């Protein structure tokens, strides 16, 4: 342990039910530096920092803070020790004033609000923040909320502040202000880790840069030693995943009929004037970073978004103009959406796999008092179990007792039973074991070979490249680039997505 380091991770591993988010990682944070943490979605950046902030505990390895081995049980404990984390979604109480939030948890028996406000005003002014301490937090913009969070961290005498994508919601003006602020914090001896997707920011602001990929640190060093190209290279170049997804050169399938065409679609602030098409007999990959609006585009098409936040545009299914307000008519017309979060809206957890499949079959029958036989559920489980190599434990096992891969296969099968023309897979292999990933990719290819129109949304580049014939890149609610498989490379797709 050198004195220069305030935080050290040694051979650290964090696993969630045996699947490691990161493994055997060594990480140093120097005193008074700005350290940028880069990597694709799912590379393990957030988990790594959350371990330092006391949200998770390490499965293996050591966490050293200020030279002593520590293990924080809660974020509050980490904060007391001097490590604060500013999350993507700020953790402020919206109904309280800035001052109340600042001194949250330190209320005296008789709380004098005016005194609190005066104290807060002096404190904020001392930091050069122009925030009104009497303002209610819900009325503040993203940048001001962040200032309050930072002020709170400083107030708690944090010596390390971790930011999870702090600039994602800021305007350019606010960003500049934010970076100035970071410099000031550093001058006071506070060390900073910030997770970001924007490479330029990392290069411009950070003293050191660490790049993560697949739960490992692939590059780490002085920011001066990095260039854009070398960072992108480090982020995407992979060995393990190539063997997983097979780097066999394949040729793209030809265009079939135009099944779906979306023109100038806008929806709240999430989808902005976006246009794209999907063809039958082909897999259309949709790549974008988290929050780019891919899922929202798919959800508008499939009628999943609730309430009226549709701001115009046209959706055509096989040439016919459609606009679905609930998923039911979309399913009837042949558009199914396979969810990115199967626990939330994928499967019915207290039912068996067969019963889940049967629900899919029951959707298109209109007679409500029609008899339903339990034997049919078993039959479906057997039929699809063989087709999808479902490793069923027993006929009576509830969904919740199955593995992630099996759950995902059931969710997919439930949608395929509905005989769709267009299937939208949103992150089809999230939380799925390695064997099942390969099988799901094969299934996706088979569906396209059979002439179905398939859309695969993923923030995992190798997956997109492994399954797609045509790639759409989404950024800030819009399809910004379209390329055929033959033109696509990891670098090119990533470049389009972050620029």
């Amino acid at each position, binding site marked *: 342990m050198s004195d220069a380091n305030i935080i050290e991770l040694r051979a650290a591993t964090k696993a969630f039910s045996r699947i490691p988010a990161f493994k055997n990682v060594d990480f140093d944070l120097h005193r008074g530096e700005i350290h940028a943490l880069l990597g694709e979605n799912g590379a393990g950046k957030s988990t790594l920092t959350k371990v330092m902030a006391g949200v998770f505990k390490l499965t293996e390895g050591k966490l050293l803070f200020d030279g002593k081995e520590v293990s924080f049980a809660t974020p509050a404990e980490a904060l007391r020790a001097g490590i604060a984390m500013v999350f993507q979604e700020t953790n402020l109480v919206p109904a309280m004033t800035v001052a109340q939030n600042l001194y949250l948890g330190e209320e005296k028996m008789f709380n004098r609000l005016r005194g609190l406000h005066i104290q807060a005003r002096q404190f904020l002014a001392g930091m050069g923040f122009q925030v009104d301490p009497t303002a209610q937090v819900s009325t503040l913009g993203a940048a001001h909320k962040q200032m309050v969070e930072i002020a709170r961290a400083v107030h708690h005498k944090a010596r390390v502040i971790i930011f999870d994508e702090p600039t994602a919601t800021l305007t350019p003006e606010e960003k500049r202000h934010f970076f100035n602020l970071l410099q000031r914090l550093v001058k006071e001896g506070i060390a900073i880790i910030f997770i970001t997707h924007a490479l330029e920011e990392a290069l411009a602001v950070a003293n050191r840069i660490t790049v993560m990929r697949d739960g490992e640190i692939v590059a780490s060093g002085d920011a001066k030693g990095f260039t854009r190209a070398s960072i992108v290279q480090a982020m995407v170049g992979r060995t393990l995943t190539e063997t997983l997804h097979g780097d066999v050169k394949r040729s793209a399938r030809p265009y079939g009929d135009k099944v779906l065409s979306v023109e100038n679609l806008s929806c709240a602030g999430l989808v902005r004037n976006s246009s794209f098409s999907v063809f039958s007999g082909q897999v259309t990959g949709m790549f974008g970073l988290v929050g780019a609006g891919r899922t929202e585009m798919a959800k508008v098409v499939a009628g999943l978004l609730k309430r009226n936040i549709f701001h115009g545009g046209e959706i055509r299914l096989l040439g016919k103009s459609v606009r679905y307000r609930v998923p039911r008519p979309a399913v009837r017309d042949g558009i199914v959406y396979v969810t990115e979060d199967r626990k939330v*809206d*994928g499967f019915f957890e207290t*039912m068996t796999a067969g019963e889940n499949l049967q629900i899919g079959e029951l959707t298109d029958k209109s007679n409500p*008092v029609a008899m*339903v036989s339990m034997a049919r559920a078993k039959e479906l489980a057997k039929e699809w179990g063989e087709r999808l190599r479902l490793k069923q434990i027993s006929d009576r096992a509830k969904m919740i007792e199955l593995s992630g891969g099996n759950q995902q296969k059931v969710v997919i099968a439930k949608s395929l039973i509905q005989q769709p023309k267009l299937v939208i897979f949103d992150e089809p292999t999230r939380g799925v074991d390695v064997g099942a990933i390969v099988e799901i990719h094969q299934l996706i290819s088979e569906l396209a070979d059979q002439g179905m129109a398939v859309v695969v949304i993923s923030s995992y580049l190798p997956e997109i490249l492994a399954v797609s014939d045509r790639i759409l890149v989404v950024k800030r609610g819009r399809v910004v680039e379209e390329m055929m498989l033959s033109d696509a490379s990891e670098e090119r797709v990533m470049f389009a997505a972050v620029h």
Partner: protein
Amino acid sequence: MAGRGKPGGRIGSVQISQELVVIAISVILFAVFSATLNNFLSQGNVIAILKNVSILGTLAVGMGFIVVGRGIDLTMVAVMVVGVAFSIWVSSWGVDFTLAVICGALLAAAIGLFTGIMVAVAEIPPIFATLAIASSVYGSGRIVFASDVLYAPPNIAWLKFVGNGSVFGIPMSVVMFACVAALMAFFLRKTRFGRLVYATGDNPNAARTTGLPTRPIIVTQYVISALIAFTAGIIMTGLVTGIDTRLYNSSLIYDVLLVVVLGGIGLSGGQGGVRNVIAGTILVGILTNGMTILNFSYTSQNLIKSVILLSALAIDAIINPRDEQTSQSGDI
């Protein structure tokens, strides 16, 4: 992955479910009361127990049906008293009583429809929607009907049969409860609609995404539960020849919930069935009857029942934990 586990553990090859525990407790209570209370085991008393629980049980079948779909219906007692009172009120103009009963049933169905729309379309959490609708329904009824207690016209043959008749020695009220329960069991287990109710209760978001008509399903559920409440009201009118609208102010709706929760229908939806309702009904029936023979006051009976309800809810929360998503949705 966190989530609802199997309810209870296993002893040998027997799955310990809440239903089994409830039945075991019922048997024990029955044995204890039989041994210690003089008149408990008499044929008259057993039939009295069954008669007394037939109304409660019928209401609980409707409530259980709603709870399986992850809702709650606090309007049931209000619909019951106001629906029947409306029928009697209409018949007092000289309308044929049977026709008046049909009018009452239509009113009950209309209230159910309104409740269903409030829950499914306006997306008001069912506990608040039904609480508010219950008191508006009762309040409107009180304004329209002149008195608290309305008596059915005498000499209605079928109503007398409902009250005093019997089939193979079983009181008609119990037969009606059994019919409602059997129909519901069939409906839930064997029909397409029943499967969809379970699916919607298990995971409403997944049901919607899969393309189920979730809103019509929920609305239909509330219409059916209102009609069941009305049926319970008819049974009551047969038994006591009239309806006391003040029943709305009693603890009856909580007894109904007690039966449902005690029987083991998880408030998190998608679990349990009519069997659970029957188990809960029998336990509450035996308990109430025993406490009455023991001459417990109404207040202390309520105290005991509420303690049991609270424990049942706590146990339900522990063995059927709601995950983060469901706990945020704001329903009960």
